[in-house]
Protein backbone atom coordinates (compact mmCIF):
# COMPACT_ATOMS: atom_id res chain seq x y z
CA UNK A 1 0.00 0.00 0.00
CA UNK A 2 1.39 3.44 -0.79
CA UNK A 3 2.67 5.40 2.17
CA UNK A 4 0.23 8.26 1.65
CA UNK A 5 -2.70 5.92 2.21
CA UNK A 6 -1.15 4.60 5.40
CA UNK A 7 -0.50 8.10 6.70
CA UNK A 8 -4.14 9.05 6.10
CA UNK A 9 -5.27 6.33 8.47
CA UNK A 10 -4.35 8.14 11.69
CA UNK A 11 -5.67 11.57 10.71
CA UNK A 12 -9.04 10.70 9.29
CA UNK A 13 -11.80 10.03 11.81
CA UNK A 14 -13.70 7.94 9.25
CA UNK A 15 -11.46 5.46 7.52
CA UNK A 16 -11.84 5.57 3.78
CA UNK A 17 -12.58 2.39 1.86
CA UNK A 18 -9.07 2.61 0.42
CA UNK A 19 -7.59 2.71 3.93
CA UNK A 20 -9.56 -0.37 4.91
CA UNK A 21 -8.77 -2.31 1.76
CA UNK A 22 -6.13 -4.97 1.35
CA UNK A 23 -4.31 -4.57 -1.96
CA UNK A 24 -3.29 -8.23 -2.18
CA UNK A 25 -6.91 -9.34 -1.86
CA UNK A 26 -7.97 -6.82 -4.48
CA UNK A 27 -5.17 -7.95 -6.78
CA UNK A 28 -6.23 -11.58 -6.52
CA UNK A 29 -9.84 -10.70 -7.33
CA UNK A 30 -8.81 -8.49 -10.24
CA UNK A 31 -6.25 -10.47 -12.17
CA UNK A 32 -6.06 -14.04 -10.92
CA UNK A 33 -8.05 -17.17 -11.68
CA UNK A 34 -6.05 -19.94 -9.98
CA UNK A 35 -8.66 -22.67 -10.46
CA UNK A 36 -8.92 -21.87 -14.17
CA UNK A 37 -5.12 -21.91 -14.46
CA UNK A 38 -4.88 -25.29 -12.69
CA UNK A 39 -7.39 -26.81 -15.10
CA UNK A 40 -5.65 -25.37 -18.16
CA UNK A 41 -2.21 -26.46 -16.93
CA UNK A 42 -3.29 -30.02 -16.18
CA UNK A 43 -5.15 -30.35 -19.47
CA UNK A 44 -2.28 -28.92 -21.49
CA UNK A 45 0.31 -31.07 -19.74
CA UNK A 46 -1.76 -34.25 -20.29
CA UNK A 47 -2.17 -33.39 -23.95
CA UNK A 48 1.56 -32.86 -24.44
CA UNK A 49 2.84 -35.67 -22.19
CA UNK A 50 0.07 -38.24 -21.93
CA UNK A 51 0.05 -38.34 -18.13
CA UNK A 52 -0.88 -36.15 -15.19
CA UNK A 53 1.52 -33.59 -13.74
CA UNK A 54 2.16 -33.91 -10.01
CA UNK A 55 4.71 -31.28 -9.00
CA UNK A 56 4.35 -27.64 -9.92
CA UNK A 57 6.56 -24.62 -9.37
CA UNK A 58 5.09 -21.13 -9.39
CA UNK A 59 7.67 -18.45 -10.09
CA UNK A 60 6.90 -14.90 -8.95
CA UNK A 61 4.25 -16.59 -6.81
CA UNK A 62 3.31 -13.56 -4.71
CA UNK A 63 0.49 -14.69 -2.43
CA UNK A 64 0.84 -18.27 -3.75
CA UNK A 65 -2.86 -18.46 -4.59
CA UNK A 66 -2.01 -20.76 -7.51
CA UNK A 67 0.20 -23.03 -5.35
CA UNK A 68 -2.69 -23.44 -2.92
CA UNK A 69 -5.18 -24.16 -5.73
CA UNK A 70 -2.78 -26.71 -7.23
CA UNK A 71 -2.30 -28.59 -3.93
CA UNK A 72 -6.06 -28.49 -3.26
CA UNK A 73 -6.89 -29.91 -6.69
CA UNK A 74 -5.49 -33.39 -6.04
CA UNK A 75 -4.04 -35.18 -2.98
CA UNK A 76 -0.75 -36.14 -4.70
CA UNK A 77 0.01 -32.70 -6.06
CA UNK A 78 2.83 -30.64 -4.60
CA UNK A 79 3.70 -26.99 -5.20
CA UNK A 80 6.77 -24.85 -4.79
CA UNK A 81 6.32 -21.09 -4.79
CA UNK A 82 9.25 -18.75 -5.43
CA UNK A 83 9.15 -15.01 -4.88
CA UNK A 84 11.43 -12.18 -3.77
CA UNK A 85 8.90 -10.77 -1.29
CA UNK A 86 8.69 -12.59 2.03
CA UNK A 87 5.96 -10.19 3.14
CA UNK A 88 3.69 -11.18 0.26
CA UNK A 89 4.32 -14.89 0.83
CA UNK A 90 3.53 -14.49 4.54
CA UNK A 91 0.26 -12.85 3.59
CA UNK A 92 -0.45 -15.80 1.27
CA UNK A 93 0.39 -18.36 3.95
CA UNK A 94 -2.09 -16.80 6.35
CA UNK A 95 -4.71 -16.30 3.66
CA UNK A 96 -4.52 -19.54 1.67
CA UNK A 97 -2.36 -22.19 3.30
CA UNK A 98 -3.40 -22.06 6.93
CA UNK A 99 -7.15 -22.16 6.13
CA UNK A 100 -6.59 -24.99 3.61
CA UNK A 101 -5.58 -27.33 6.42
CA UNK A 102 -2.45 -29.23 7.27
CA UNK A 103 -2.66 -31.74 4.42
CA UNK A 104 -2.74 -29.08 1.70
CA UNK A 105 -0.30 -26.77 3.49
CA UNK A 106 2.22 -29.58 3.95
CA UNK A 107 2.38 -30.07 0.19
CA UNK A 108 3.22 -26.40 -0.52
CA UNK A 109 6.67 -24.93 0.08
CA UNK A 110 7.44 -21.25 -0.35
CA UNK A 111 10.95 -20.01 -0.97
CA UNK A 112 12.10 -16.41 -0.83
CA UNK A 113 14.62 -16.35 -3.66
CA UNK A 114 15.50 -15.06 -7.12
CA UNK A 115 13.68 -17.26 -9.65
CA UNK A 116 16.95 -17.65 -11.59
CA UNK A 117 18.70 -19.31 -8.68
CA UNK A 118 16.24 -22.13 -7.94
CA UNK A 119 16.94 -25.43 -9.75
CA UNK A 120 15.81 -28.02 -7.19
CA UNK A 121 13.61 -29.86 -6.54
CA UNK A 122 12.89 -30.68 -10.15
CA UNK A 123 9.24 -30.36 -11.10
CA UNK A 124 6.84 -31.49 -13.82
CA UNK A 125 5.54 -28.04 -14.49
CA UNK A 126 6.84 -24.53 -13.91
CA UNK A 127 4.72 -21.47 -14.48
CA UNK A 128 5.33 -17.73 -14.62
CA UNK A 129 2.08 -15.82 -14.81
CA UNK A 130 0.83 -12.25 -14.90
CA UNK A 131 3.75 -11.29 -17.15
CA UNK A 132 6.06 -11.10 -14.13
CA UNK A 133 9.05 -12.27 -16.14
CA UNK A 134 8.78 -8.98 -18.07
CA UNK A 135 10.94 -7.57 -15.25
CA UNK A 136 13.88 -9.12 -17.11
CA UNK A 137 14.48 -6.35 -19.61
CA UNK A 138 17.70 -7.55 -21.15
CA UNK A 139 17.66 -10.50 -23.52
CA UNK A 140 20.58 -12.09 -21.66
CA UNK A 141 18.67 -11.88 -18.37
CA UNK A 142 15.55 -13.47 -19.79
CA UNK A 143 17.64 -16.18 -21.42
CA UNK A 144 19.31 -16.86 -18.07
CA UNK A 145 15.91 -17.16 -16.42
CA UNK A 146 14.48 -19.49 -19.09
CA UNK A 147 17.65 -21.59 -18.91
CA UNK A 148 17.22 -21.90 -15.14
CA UNK A 149 13.59 -22.97 -15.60
CA UNK A 150 14.70 -25.56 -18.15
CA UNK A 151 17.32 -26.93 -15.74
CA UNK A 152 14.73 -27.15 -12.96
CA UNK A 153 12.26 -29.27 -14.91
CA UNK A 154 11.93 -33.04 -14.97
CA UNK A 155 12.85 -34.66 -18.27
CA UNK A 156 9.32 -34.40 -19.62
CA UNK A 157 8.60 -31.11 -17.87
CA UNK A 158 6.61 -28.23 -19.32
CA UNK A 159 6.99 -24.50 -18.75
CA UNK A 160 3.83 -22.40 -18.89
CA UNK A 161 3.78 -18.66 -19.12
CA UNK A 162 1.43 -15.94 -20.22
CA UNK A 163 1.97 -12.92 -22.40
CA UNK A 164 0.28 -9.71 -23.40
CA UNK A 165 -0.03 -8.40 -26.95
CA UNK A 166 -2.09 -6.59 -29.55
CA UNK A 167 -1.98 -3.27 -31.31
CA UNK A 168 -3.12 -1.47 -28.15
CA UNK A 169 -0.58 -3.21 -25.93
CA UNK A 170 2.00 -0.79 -27.30
CA UNK A 171 -0.10 2.29 -26.65
CA UNK A 172 -0.48 4.34 -23.52
CA UNK A 173 -3.87 4.33 -21.83
CA UNK A 174 -6.02 3.01 -19.00
CA UNK A 175 -8.63 0.27 -18.76
CA UNK A 176 -11.20 0.06 -15.96
CA UNK A 177 -12.85 -3.08 -14.68
CA UNK A 178 -15.74 -2.57 -12.28
CA UNK A 179 -15.96 -5.19 -9.55
CA UNK A 180 -18.89 -3.52 -7.77
CA UNK A 181 -17.18 -2.64 -4.50
CA UNK A 182 -14.10 -1.30 -6.30
CA UNK A 183 -12.76 -0.46 -9.74
CA UNK A 184 -9.58 -2.11 -10.94
CA UNK A 185 -7.67 0.32 -13.15
CA UNK A 186 -4.88 -0.89 -15.42
CA UNK A 187 -2.65 1.92 -16.66
CA UNK A 188 -0.11 1.59 -19.44
CA UNK A 189 1.80 4.74 -18.58
CA UNK A 190 4.65 4.49 -21.03
CA UNK A 191 5.82 2.39 -23.94
CA UNK A 192 9.13 3.10 -25.64
CA UNK A 193 9.35 1.83 -29.21
CA UNK A 194 13.18 1.73 -29.13
CA UNK A 195 13.61 -0.50 -26.11
CA UNK A 196 10.05 -1.78 -25.61
CA UNK A 197 10.35 -0.53 -22.03
CA UNK A 198 6.87 -0.66 -20.61
CA UNK A 199 5.74 1.14 -17.46
CA UNK A 200 2.43 0.05 -15.98
CA UNK A 201 0.41 0.58 -12.82
CA UNK A 202 -2.54 -0.95 -11.06
CA UNK A 203 -4.80 1.45 -9.18
CA UNK A 204 -7.87 0.62 -7.09
CA UNK A 205 -10.75 3.10 -6.90
CA UNK A 206 -13.59 2.96 -4.38
CA UNK A 207 -17.20 4.19 -4.34
CA UNK A 208 -16.43 6.77 -1.61
CA UNK A 209 -13.95 8.46 -3.95
CA UNK A 210 -10.89 7.13 -2.17
CA UNK A 211 -8.27 5.21 -4.07
CA UNK A 212 -5.10 3.25 -3.76
CA UNK A 213 -3.00 5.04 -6.33
CA UNK A 214 -0.28 2.91 -7.91
CA UNK A 215 -1.01 -0.07 -5.65
CA UNK A 216 1.35 -1.99 -7.92
CA UNK A 217 3.99 -0.53 -10.23
CA UNK A 218 5.73 -2.42 -13.02
CA UNK A 219 8.93 -1.54 -14.82
CA UNK A 220 8.85 -4.03 -17.65
CA UNK A 221 9.94 -4.84 -21.16
CA UNK A 222 7.02 -5.86 -23.32
CA UNK A 223 8.35 -9.00 -24.96
CA UNK A 224 6.87 -9.94 -28.33
CA UNK A 225 5.73 -13.47 -29.15
CA UNK A 226 8.49 -14.31 -31.66
CA UNK A 227 11.12 -13.01 -29.26
CA UNK A 228 9.81 -15.32 -26.56
CA UNK A 229 9.79 -18.28 -28.91
CA UNK A 230 13.39 -17.53 -29.96
CA UNK A 231 14.63 -17.22 -26.38
CA UNK A 232 12.78 -20.33 -25.16
CA UNK A 233 14.32 -22.40 -27.96
CA UNK A 234 17.74 -20.90 -27.24
CA UNK A 235 17.32 -21.83 -23.56
CA UNK A 236 16.97 -25.47 -24.57
CA UNK A 237 13.22 -26.04 -24.84
CA UNK A 238 12.41 -28.38 -27.70
CA UNK A 239 9.01 -27.09 -28.76
CA UNK A 240 7.04 -23.93 -28.08
CA UNK A 241 3.25 -23.72 -28.34
CA UNK A 242 1.22 -20.53 -28.50
CA UNK A 243 -2.43 -20.80 -27.55
CA UNK A 244 -5.28 -18.50 -28.41
CA UNK A 245 -8.57 -17.95 -26.67
CA UNK A 246 -11.71 -18.89 -28.58
CA UNK A 247 -14.26 -16.12 -28.79
CA UNK A 248 -18.02 -16.36 -29.01
CA UNK A 249 -20.31 -14.74 -31.56
CA UNK A 250 -20.04 -11.39 -29.73
CA UNK A 251 -16.26 -11.57 -29.76
CA UNK A 252 -16.05 -12.23 -26.01
CA UNK A 253 -13.47 -14.65 -24.61
CA UNK A 254 -14.77 -18.13 -23.73
CA UNK A 255 -11.93 -19.35 -21.54
CA UNK A 256 -11.22 -22.10 -24.06
CA UNK A 257 -7.77 -22.04 -25.62
CA UNK A 258 -6.52 -23.73 -28.81
CA UNK A 259 -3.32 -23.73 -30.83
CA UNK A 260 -3.96 -21.73 -34.02
CA UNK A 261 -2.18 -21.91 -37.39
CA UNK A 262 -2.81 -18.25 -38.05
CA UNK A 263 -4.74 -15.59 -36.20
CA UNK A 264 -5.29 -11.95 -36.95
CA UNK A 265 -3.95 -9.47 -34.47
CA UNK A 266 -6.43 -7.88 -32.08
CA UNK A 267 -6.43 -4.64 -30.19
CA UNK A 268 -5.48 -6.30 -26.93
CA UNK A 269 -5.01 -9.94 -26.04
CA UNK A 270 -3.28 -12.12 -23.52
CA UNK A 271 -2.51 -15.79 -23.91
CA UNK A 272 -0.64 -18.81 -22.61
CA UNK A 273 2.60 -20.23 -23.97
CA UNK A 274 3.73 -23.80 -23.27
CA UNK A 275 7.37 -24.77 -23.76
CA UNK A 276 8.31 -28.46 -23.71
CA UNK A 277 11.61 -29.44 -22.16
Amino acid at each position, binding site marked *: MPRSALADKSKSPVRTLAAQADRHALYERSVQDPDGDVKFFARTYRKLRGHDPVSMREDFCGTAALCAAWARSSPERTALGVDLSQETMNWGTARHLVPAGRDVASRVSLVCADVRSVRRPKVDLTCALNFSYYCFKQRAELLEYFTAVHAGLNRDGVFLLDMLGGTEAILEGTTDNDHGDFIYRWEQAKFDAF*SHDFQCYIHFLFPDGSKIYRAYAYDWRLWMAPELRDILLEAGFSRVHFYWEKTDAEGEGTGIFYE*PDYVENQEIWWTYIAAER
Partner: protein
Amino acid sequence: MPKKSSKSPAAKAPKKKTAKKATRPTLAQRADKHQLYQWSVQSPGVDIEFFTEEFTRHRGRKPLRLREDFCGTAHFSTEWCKTDPQRTALGVDLDGPTLAYGRQHNLEPAGPAVANRVKLAQADVRETRFAKVDLTLAMNFSYCVFKTRDELQTYFAAACKGLVRDGILALEVYGGTESMSTLTEERDIRGGATYIWEQEKFSPITHHTLCHISWRFKKDKSVLHRAFTYDWRLWTLPELRELMLTAGFKSVKFYFERVDGDEGDEFLTGTGEFIEHDEVDNQEAFLAYVLALK
Protein backbone atom coordinates in the same frame (compact mmCIF):
# COMPACT_ATOMS: atom_id res chain seq x y z
CA MET B 1 15.08 -5.67 -52.97
CA PRO B 2 13.43 -9.07 -53.22
CA LYS B 3 10.95 -9.14 -55.97
CA LYS B 4 8.90 -12.25 -55.75
CA SER B 5 6.42 -11.01 -58.25
CA SER B 6 4.33 -13.08 -60.53
CA LYS B 7 5.07 -12.42 -64.18
CA SER B 8 4.30 -8.89 -65.07
CA PRO B 9 1.04 -8.59 -67.00
CA ALA B 10 2.95 -6.19 -69.23
CA ALA B 11 4.96 -9.13 -70.52
CA LYS B 12 1.88 -10.90 -71.76
CA ALA B 13 1.05 -10.34 -75.37
CA PRO B 14 -2.44 -8.95 -75.76
CA LYS B 15 -4.84 -11.48 -77.21
CA LYS B 16 -5.71 -10.90 -80.82
CA LYS B 17 -9.35 -10.23 -81.36
CA THR B 18 -11.23 -8.85 -84.27
CA ALA B 19 -12.71 -5.89 -82.47
CA LYS B 20 -9.82 -3.47 -82.22
CA LYS B 21 -11.04 -1.71 -79.09
CA ALA B 22 -11.14 -4.91 -77.09
CA THR B 23 -7.55 -5.78 -77.95
CA ARG B 24 -6.16 -2.53 -76.67
CA PRO B 25 -4.16 -3.36 -73.55
CA THR B 26 -5.10 -1.59 -70.35
CA LEU B 27 -2.79 0.88 -68.68
CA ALA B 28 -2.04 -1.77 -66.09
CA GLN B 29 -1.01 -4.20 -68.81
CA ARG B 30 1.26 -1.62 -70.41
CA ALA B 31 2.71 -0.42 -67.11
CA ASP B 32 6.36 -0.70 -66.13
CA LYS B 33 6.29 -2.01 -62.57
CA HIS B 34 9.91 -1.13 -61.84
CA GLN B 35 9.37 2.46 -62.91
CA LEU B 36 6.21 2.64 -60.80
CA TYR B 37 8.08 1.18 -57.86
CA GLN B 38 10.80 3.82 -58.13
CA TRP B 39 8.21 6.57 -58.30
CA SER B 40 6.20 5.19 -55.41
CA VAL B 41 8.64 4.21 -52.69
CA GLN B 42 12.09 5.50 -53.51
CA SER B 43 13.51 8.97 -52.93
CA PRO B 44 17.26 8.57 -53.10
CA GLY B 45 17.89 12.33 -53.13
CA VAL B 46 16.56 12.79 -49.59
CA ASP B 47 18.20 9.62 -48.33
CA ILE B 48 21.63 10.45 -49.79
CA GLU B 49 21.56 13.86 -48.16
CA PHE B 50 20.63 12.35 -44.79
CA PHE B 51 23.19 9.53 -44.88
CA THR B 52 25.98 11.86 -46.04
CA GLU B 53 25.21 14.29 -43.23
CA GLU B 54 25.07 11.63 -40.53
CA PHE B 55 28.14 9.78 -41.79
CA THR B 56 30.09 13.04 -41.81
CA ARG B 57 28.88 13.92 -38.33
CA HIS B 58 29.96 10.58 -36.86
CA ARG B 59 33.10 9.95 -38.88
CA GLY B 60 34.43 13.37 -39.78
CA ARG B 61 34.63 12.58 -43.48
CA LYS B 62 32.32 12.09 -46.42
CA PRO B 63 31.31 8.57 -47.43
CA LEU B 64 32.41 7.74 -50.96
CA ARG B 65 32.09 3.99 -51.45
CA LEU B 66 28.54 2.70 -51.24
CA ARG B 67 27.14 -0.79 -51.24
CA GLU B 68 23.42 -1.09 -51.91
CA ASP B 69 22.10 -4.46 -50.75
CA PHE B 70 18.85 -5.71 -52.28
CA CYS B 71 19.52 -3.02 -54.89
CA GLY B 72 16.85 -4.09 -57.39
CA THR B 73 17.08 -1.63 -60.29
CA ALA B 74 20.07 0.11 -58.64
CA HIS B 75 18.25 3.42 -58.73
CA PHE B 76 19.91 4.46 -55.47
CA SER B 77 23.41 3.41 -56.59
CA THR B 78 23.05 5.43 -59.79
CA GLU B 79 21.86 8.55 -57.97
CA TRP B 80 24.70 8.11 -55.44
CA CYS B 81 27.32 8.23 -58.17
CA LYS B 82 25.69 11.25 -59.79
CA THR B 83 26.18 13.32 -56.62
CA ASP B 84 29.99 13.26 -56.64
CA PRO B 85 32.54 12.17 -59.29
CA GLN B 86 34.56 10.38 -56.61
CA ARG B 87 31.67 8.23 -55.50
CA THR B 88 31.38 4.54 -56.37
CA ALA B 89 28.59 2.05 -55.81
CA LEU B 90 28.16 -1.68 -55.70
CA GLY B 91 24.62 -2.96 -56.08
CA VAL B 92 23.88 -6.49 -54.88
CA ASP B 93 20.69 -8.35 -55.68
CA LEU B 94 19.61 -11.95 -56.32
CA ASP B 95 17.36 -11.11 -59.24
CA GLY B 96 19.10 -11.03 -62.63
CA PRO B 97 16.23 -9.58 -64.71
CA THR B 98 15.76 -6.69 -62.26
CA LEU B 99 19.48 -5.89 -62.40
CA ALA B 100 19.29 -6.01 -66.21
CA TYR B 101 16.37 -3.58 -66.10
CA GLY B 102 18.47 -1.28 -63.93
CA ARG B 103 21.39 -1.39 -66.34
CA GLN B 104 19.14 -0.41 -69.20
CA HIS B 105 16.92 2.15 -67.50
CA ASN B 106 19.09 3.70 -64.82
CA LEU B 107 22.79 3.15 -65.61
CA GLU B 108 22.80 3.68 -69.39
CA PRO B 109 20.79 6.91 -69.36
CA ALA B 110 23.14 8.30 -66.68
CA GLY B 111 26.04 8.20 -69.13
CA PRO B 112 29.36 6.35 -68.95
CA ALA B 113 30.97 8.74 -66.45
CA VAL B 114 28.39 7.66 -63.89
CA ALA B 115 27.67 4.13 -65.10
CA ASN B 116 31.37 3.19 -64.98
CA ARG B 117 31.38 3.79 -61.26
CA VAL B 118 28.41 1.51 -60.58
CA LYS B 119 29.07 -2.20 -60.35
CA LEU B 120 26.23 -4.66 -60.10
CA ALA B 121 26.54 -8.14 -58.68
CA GLN B 122 23.93 -10.87 -58.85
CA ALA B 123 24.61 -12.41 -55.47
CA ASP B 124 23.32 -13.11 -51.97
CA VAL B 125 23.74 -10.05 -49.76
CA ARG B 126 25.45 -12.28 -47.17
CA GLU B 127 28.33 -12.65 -49.67
CA THR B 128 31.57 -11.21 -48.27
CA ARG B 129 33.94 -11.43 -51.25
CA PHE B 130 33.45 -7.83 -52.41
CA ALA B 131 35.71 -4.83 -51.79
CA LYS B 132 35.05 -3.01 -48.53
CA VAL B 133 32.88 0.10 -48.54
CA ASP B 134 32.17 3.14 -46.35
CA LEU B 135 28.41 2.81 -46.27
CA THR B 136 26.12 -0.17 -46.80
CA LEU B 137 22.41 0.35 -47.28
CA ALA B 138 19.46 -1.99 -46.98
CA MET B 139 16.46 0.10 -47.89
CA ASN B 140 12.75 -0.59 -48.15
CA PHE B 141 12.81 -3.20 -45.35
CA SER B 142 14.29 -5.84 -47.66
CA TYR B 143 16.26 -7.48 -44.84
CA CYS B 144 12.89 -8.60 -43.45
CA VAL B 145 13.15 -11.60 -45.81
CA PHE B 146 15.48 -13.01 -43.16
CA LYS B 147 12.94 -14.51 -40.81
CA THR B 148 15.17 -16.12 -38.19
CA ARG B 149 17.64 -14.50 -35.83
CA ASP B 150 20.41 -16.69 -37.22
CA GLU B 151 19.79 -15.54 -40.78
CA LEU B 152 19.52 -11.88 -39.90
CA GLN B 153 22.55 -12.00 -37.62
CA THR B 154 24.56 -13.69 -40.39
CA TYR B 155 23.54 -10.89 -42.72
CA PHE B 156 24.50 -8.18 -40.22
CA ALA B 157 27.83 -9.90 -39.53
CA ALA B 158 28.53 -10.08 -43.29
CA ALA B 159 27.57 -6.42 -43.68
CA CYS B 160 29.89 -5.52 -40.80
CA LYS B 161 32.74 -7.47 -42.37
CA GLY B 162 32.16 -5.73 -45.70
CA LEU B 163 32.68 -2.28 -44.19
CA VAL B 164 35.93 -0.34 -43.78
CA ARG B 165 37.06 0.34 -40.21
CA ASP B 166 34.81 3.38 -39.72
CA GLY B 167 32.01 2.11 -41.93
CA ILE B 168 28.28 2.37 -41.28
CA LEU B 169 25.34 0.12 -42.12
CA ALA B 170 22.05 1.94 -42.65
CA LEU B 171 18.63 0.47 -42.98
CA GLU B 172 14.99 1.35 -42.77
CA VAL B 173 12.42 -0.05 -40.41
CA TYR B 174 8.68 0.46 -40.05
CA GLY B 175 6.61 -0.22 -37.00
CA GLY B 176 3.84 1.02 -34.74
CA THR B 177 0.36 -0.24 -34.15
CA GLU B 178 -0.67 -0.17 -37.81
CA SER B 179 2.30 -2.25 -38.90
CA MET B 180 0.89 -5.10 -36.83
CA SER B 181 -2.50 -5.16 -38.50
CA THR B 182 -3.99 -6.00 -41.84
CA LEU B 183 -4.71 -2.90 -43.87
CA THR B 184 -4.68 -1.28 -47.29
CA GLU B 185 -3.35 2.20 -47.91
CA GLU B 186 -3.54 4.22 -51.09
CA ARG B 187 -1.55 7.17 -52.27
CA ASP B 188 -1.60 9.05 -55.57
CA ILE B 189 1.66 9.10 -57.45
CA ARG B 190 2.60 10.66 -60.74
CA GLY B 191 1.32 9.46 -64.09
CA GLY B 192 -2.31 9.24 -62.94
CA ALA B 193 -1.59 6.14 -60.92
CA THR B 194 -2.51 5.21 -57.36
CA TYR B 195 -0.01 3.26 -55.29
CA ILE B 196 -1.65 0.59 -53.12
CA TRP B 197 0.13 -0.90 -50.11
CA GLU B 198 -1.62 -3.96 -48.75
CA GLN B 199 -0.80 -5.78 -45.52
CA GLU B 200 -2.73 -8.95 -46.25
CA LYS B 201 -1.58 -10.87 -43.20
CA PHE B 202 0.17 -10.19 -39.93
CA SER B 203 0.62 -12.94 -37.38
CA PRO B 204 0.94 -11.64 -33.82
CA ILE B 205 2.54 -14.96 -32.87
CA THR B 206 5.32 -15.12 -35.46
CA HIS B 207 5.35 -11.49 -36.68
CA HIS B 208 5.32 -12.91 -40.19
CA THR B 209 3.63 -10.48 -42.51
CA LEU B 210 2.49 -10.86 -46.11
CA CYS B 211 2.36 -7.60 -48.04
CA HIS B 212 1.72 -6.56 -51.62
CA ILE B 213 2.14 -3.55 -53.84
CA SER B 214 -0.46 -2.87 -56.54
CA TRP B 215 -1.22 0.14 -58.74
CA ARG B 216 -4.52 1.40 -60.07
CA PHE B 217 -4.75 3.68 -63.07
CA LYS B 218 -7.27 6.46 -62.92
CA LYS B 219 -7.92 6.78 -66.62
CA ASP B 220 -9.16 3.26 -67.34
CA LYS B 221 -9.48 2.00 -63.72
CA SER B 222 -7.27 -0.97 -64.56
CA VAL B 223 -5.20 -2.49 -61.76
CA LEU B 224 -1.72 -3.94 -61.78
CA HIS B 225 -2.58 -6.39 -59.03
CA ARG B 226 0.08 -7.43 -56.50
CA ALA B 227 3.01 -6.62 -58.78
CA PHE B 228 5.30 -7.13 -55.81
CA THR B 229 4.73 -9.50 -52.90
CA TYR B 230 6.72 -9.58 -49.68
CA ASP B 231 6.83 -12.46 -47.24
CA TRP B 232 8.56 -10.90 -44.26
CA ARG B 233 9.17 -11.00 -40.55
CA LEU B 234 8.49 -7.63 -39.07
CA TRP B 235 11.49 -7.04 -36.82
CA THR B 236 11.16 -4.70 -33.88
CA LEU B 237 13.66 -2.00 -32.92
CA PRO B 238 15.10 -3.75 -29.83
CA GLU B 239 15.58 -6.94 -31.85
CA LEU B 240 17.50 -5.05 -34.54
CA ARG B 241 19.67 -3.34 -31.97
CA GLU B 242 20.47 -6.61 -30.20
CA LEU B 243 21.30 -8.45 -33.42
CA MET B 244 23.48 -5.63 -34.74
CA LEU B 245 25.48 -5.44 -31.53
CA THR B 246 25.92 -9.23 -31.47
CA ALA B 247 27.01 -9.14 -35.12
CA GLY B 248 29.93 -6.89 -34.25
CA PHE B 249 28.70 -3.29 -34.55
CA LYS B 250 29.77 -0.94 -31.74
CA SER B 251 26.70 1.25 -31.54
CA VAL B 252 23.24 1.53 -32.99
CA LYS B 253 21.31 4.74 -33.56
CA PHE B 254 17.64 5.20 -34.38
CA TYR B 255 16.28 8.18 -36.27
CA PHE B 256 12.60 8.95 -36.36
CA GLU B 257 10.99 11.24 -38.82
CA ARG B 258 10.01 14.49 -37.15
CA VAL B 259 6.28 14.93 -37.45
CA ASP B 260 4.29 18.14 -37.82
CA GLY B 261 1.06 18.78 -36.00
CA ASP B 262 -0.22 19.71 -32.60
CA GLU B 263 -1.11 17.32 -29.86
CA GLY B 264 -4.58 15.97 -30.47
CA ASP B 265 -4.36 16.29 -34.23
CA GLU B 266 -5.84 13.28 -35.88
CA PHE B 267 -3.04 13.03 -38.37
CA LEU B 268 0.59 13.88 -38.01
CA THR B 269 2.44 14.68 -41.17
CA GLY B 270 5.95 13.54 -41.89
CA THR B 271 8.37 16.38 -42.54
CA GLY B 272 11.09 14.39 -44.25
CA GLU B 273 13.45 15.46 -41.47
CA PHE B 274 14.92 12.67 -39.36
CA ILE B 275 16.29 13.20 -35.88
CA GLU B 276 18.07 10.92 -33.49
CA HIS B 277 16.14 9.74 -30.44
CA ASP B 278 16.97 7.84 -27.28
CA GLU B 279 13.38 7.19 -26.40
CA VAL B 280 10.19 7.51 -28.33
CA ASP B 281 6.49 7.15 -27.74
CA ASN B 282 4.87 4.77 -30.12
CA GLN B 283 3.06 6.27 -33.06
CA GLU B 284 0.37 4.62 -35.08
CA ALA B 285 2.82 4.02 -37.84
CA PHE B 286 6.42 5.06 -37.96
CA LEU B 287 9.26 4.94 -40.35
CA ALA B 288 12.75 5.07 -38.92
CA TYR B 289 16.33 4.83 -40.08
CA VAL B 290 18.73 2.61 -38.18
CA LEU B 291 22.44 3.33 -38.32
CA ALA B 292 24.86 0.66 -37.12
CA LEU B 293 28.37 2.01 -36.53
CA LYS B 294 31.29 -0.38 -36.87
